[in-house]
């Protein structure tokens, strides 16, 4: 629009050149045109726009004798063009906005800070000490106006509302938590836009938004501590910014689980959870509903904390299969007559004999039976080197090396319920990798790597494994059909798989808490839910 205006102005002046011709002059038109166009030249000198051309033409104008009026108007037009080209909307409006803000917040008496969202507001704190008010004034004054030519932003995101009380009246400022189109501060009834980089931090100093830990007292002896930052931040966001249900409908008996949200300042919040963690009651404020992810996570953590105190931890043998007890007595490893080498033999009850299948490096090697006629042989060559072979019983000479010369954790080898696919964990110095084999003719597929400790099949499509990540123990479930991890649960303690059968996994959690040894038994179902099981249960069969 500005260029349009400039063109119109220039054309209008050019049109008026012949009409204003007064004295006779050589090349009159050319001279006027040159006055006009040279006066439009400008340069920027130390940040200031200088109409260089106009100044030069002014000197020439003084010496020129004819048609002074026209030529002066050409120079003025040139200056106009310079002015229009070098300024824009922002240069006008920015100082106006800043001045408006400064005037409105002069003579501060009090600032009230509330949480602000489209549905809920809550008073947080106020500032009234003169020294503190001065600090706030300085920060507010430093807001940078962000005018926009063709649109106006109305903030509707979570943030804070500041009520500024001055001697002249009350003003409102909305401060948004997120930056909306480069702006975060909206002043007054008309949402005049600014950007302020310090105000949010100032508010967070008084009223932080990052809780440190949520402590839940599930019983007199048992406490759950949740310190996952995302979960805590989301919970606090709901407490501060979401709608509350009326206290009138509140029944204390439904909210039996007390909890406390700690911050690294004096701020704290006491809540009472309902038994299923779907709601929480906050004193004097009301009842909040927790999002699905949150309450299912919390309920699960609550379940996992149901552990009994024991004198000694039990030891569990590694599990390898998820089907019915695999009758493995047909296969065994023993040395030959001379004791020179070992072999894998199949017992032949008909002939009362044994059939040699394959040579084996040591007695520690293990054999696992897959769907007939296949076997897996984990051949232990030394303490940290093994081979994993696939053997076809009918053609034992043609074995297939799945893995050669790697450190395979023998307790980790596991076979799916259909006895076809299998998984194992390979250790490579610091990193272990979980591999999945579903096609005997292709190389094993890596599923996860890190500090992977053990693995077992939950069902034909689901692989459960334990992993240590950043100091936390995790139980993860991987779906081999969609190639993604579908469950990811923090485990309070060390997890040991006890049994896997009928699309369920029985596992134990052992934890040392305040010098007490605690142990609990749980079941993971194929719908990924975890339930508590009887302490003495050691088999799913």
């Amino acid at each position, binding site marked *: *629009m500005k260029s349009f*205006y400039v063109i*119109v102005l220039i054309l209008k002046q050019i049109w008026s050149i012949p009409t204003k011709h007064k004295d006779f002059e050589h090349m009159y038109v050319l001279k006027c045109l040159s006055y006009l166009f040279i006066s439009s030249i400008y340069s920027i000198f130390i940040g200031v726009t200088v109409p260089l051309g106009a100044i030069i033409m002014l000197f020439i104008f003084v010496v020129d004798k004819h048609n002074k009026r026209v030529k002066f108007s050409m120079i003025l037009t040139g200056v106009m063009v310079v002015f229009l080209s070098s300024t824009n*909307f922002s240069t006008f409006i920015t100082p106006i906005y800043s001045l408006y803000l400064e005037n409105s917040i002069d003579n501060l008496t009090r600032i009230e800070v509330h949480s602000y969202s*489209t549905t809920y507001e809550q008073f947080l704190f106020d500032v009234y000490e003169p020294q503190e008010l001065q600090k706030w004034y300085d920060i507010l004054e430093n807001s940078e106006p962000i005018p926009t030519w*063709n*649109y*106006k*932003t*109305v*903030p*509707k*995101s*979570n943030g804070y509302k500041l009520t500024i009380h001055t001697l002249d009246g009350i003003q409102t400022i909305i401060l*948004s*938590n*997120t930056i*909306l*189109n480069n702006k975060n501060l909206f002043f007054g*009834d*008309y*949402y*005049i836009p600014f950007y302020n980089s310090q105000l949010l931090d100032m508010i967070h100093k008084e009223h932080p938004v990052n809780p440190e830990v949520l402590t839940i007292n599930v019983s007199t002896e048992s406490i759950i501590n949740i310190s*996952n*930052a*995302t979960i805590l*931040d*989301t919970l606090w*966001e709901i407490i501060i910014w979401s709608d509350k249900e009326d206290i009138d409908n509140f029944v204390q008996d439904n909210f039996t689980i007390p909890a406390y949200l700690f911050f690294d300042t004096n701020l704290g919040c006491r809540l009472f959870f309902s038994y299923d963690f779907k709601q929480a009651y906050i004193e004097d404020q009301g009842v909040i509903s927790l*999002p*699905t*992810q*949150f309450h299912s996570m919390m309920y699960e953590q609550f379940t996992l904390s149901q552990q009994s105190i024991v004198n000694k931890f039990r030891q569990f043998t590694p599990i390898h299969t998820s089907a019915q007890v695999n009758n493995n007595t047909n296969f065994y490893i023993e040395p030959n007559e001379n004791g020179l080498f070992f072999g894998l033999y199949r017992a032949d009850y008909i002939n009362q004999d044994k059939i040699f299948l394959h040579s084996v490096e040591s007695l520690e090697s293990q054999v696992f039976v897959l769907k007939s006629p296949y076997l897996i042989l984990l051949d232990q060559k030394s303490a940290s080197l093994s081979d994993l072979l696939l053997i076809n019983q009918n053609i034992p000479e043609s074995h297939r090396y799945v893995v050669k010369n790697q450190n395979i954790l023998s307790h980790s080898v596991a076979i799916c319920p259909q006895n076809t696919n299998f998984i194992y964990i390979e250790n490579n110095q610091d990193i272990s990798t979980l591999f999945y084999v579903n096609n005997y003719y292709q190389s094993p597929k890596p599923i996860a790597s890190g500090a992977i400790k053990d693995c077992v099949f939950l069902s034909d499509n689901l692989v459960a494994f334990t992993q240590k*990540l950043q100091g936390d123990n995790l139980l*993860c479930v991987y*779906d081999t059909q*969609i190639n*993604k*991890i*579908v*469950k*990811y649960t923090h485990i309070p303690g060390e997890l040991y798989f006890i049994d896997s059968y009928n699309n369920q996994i029985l596992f134990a959690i052992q934890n040392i808490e305040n010098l007490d040894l605690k142990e609990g038994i749980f079941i993971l179902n194929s719908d990924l839910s975890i339930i508590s099981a009887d302490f003495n249960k050691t088999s799913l069969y």
Partner: protein
Amino acid sequence: MLLLITFLACYIFGIRFFIIDTPKITIYSSNTVSKIDSIRTTINLENIPGEYYILVYDENPESKWRYYNVQNDLNREIINTFLPANVKEYVLFEGNKNISKFSFDIISTATVNYLNNNKTVFHLQLIIPYSPFMLPTFYFNSYYTFNIEPLL
């Protein structure tokens, strides 16, 4: 000429002090039945204006959201004015008086570890153009943010 300019100047300054009634928006997300790891987000409006646009995006490129089941409108002016330069994936709906509901599906290809430990904040801009008597269009932009819970 001068009259025209003063009129335009008054309009341009005056329009800033004008607040229109913006529709009320509710946003909710749920799991989709068809695909196990996609999330369907539905946006409902009340008090629908005659013409409007809805622009949705996540500013964080590391969340790697992909949008499905959506037909993006191609209004270049809206995209250039309101979408931040670094955002490549977004959803732009155009609506009118008859449409009160929009939905789209999203899937993330970021790792589970990342999703579980980082908040995902989506930006939603409701843009209502306003251009009386052929004057240059002025947009009123209601700016919302919302969270989506990852599916674990």
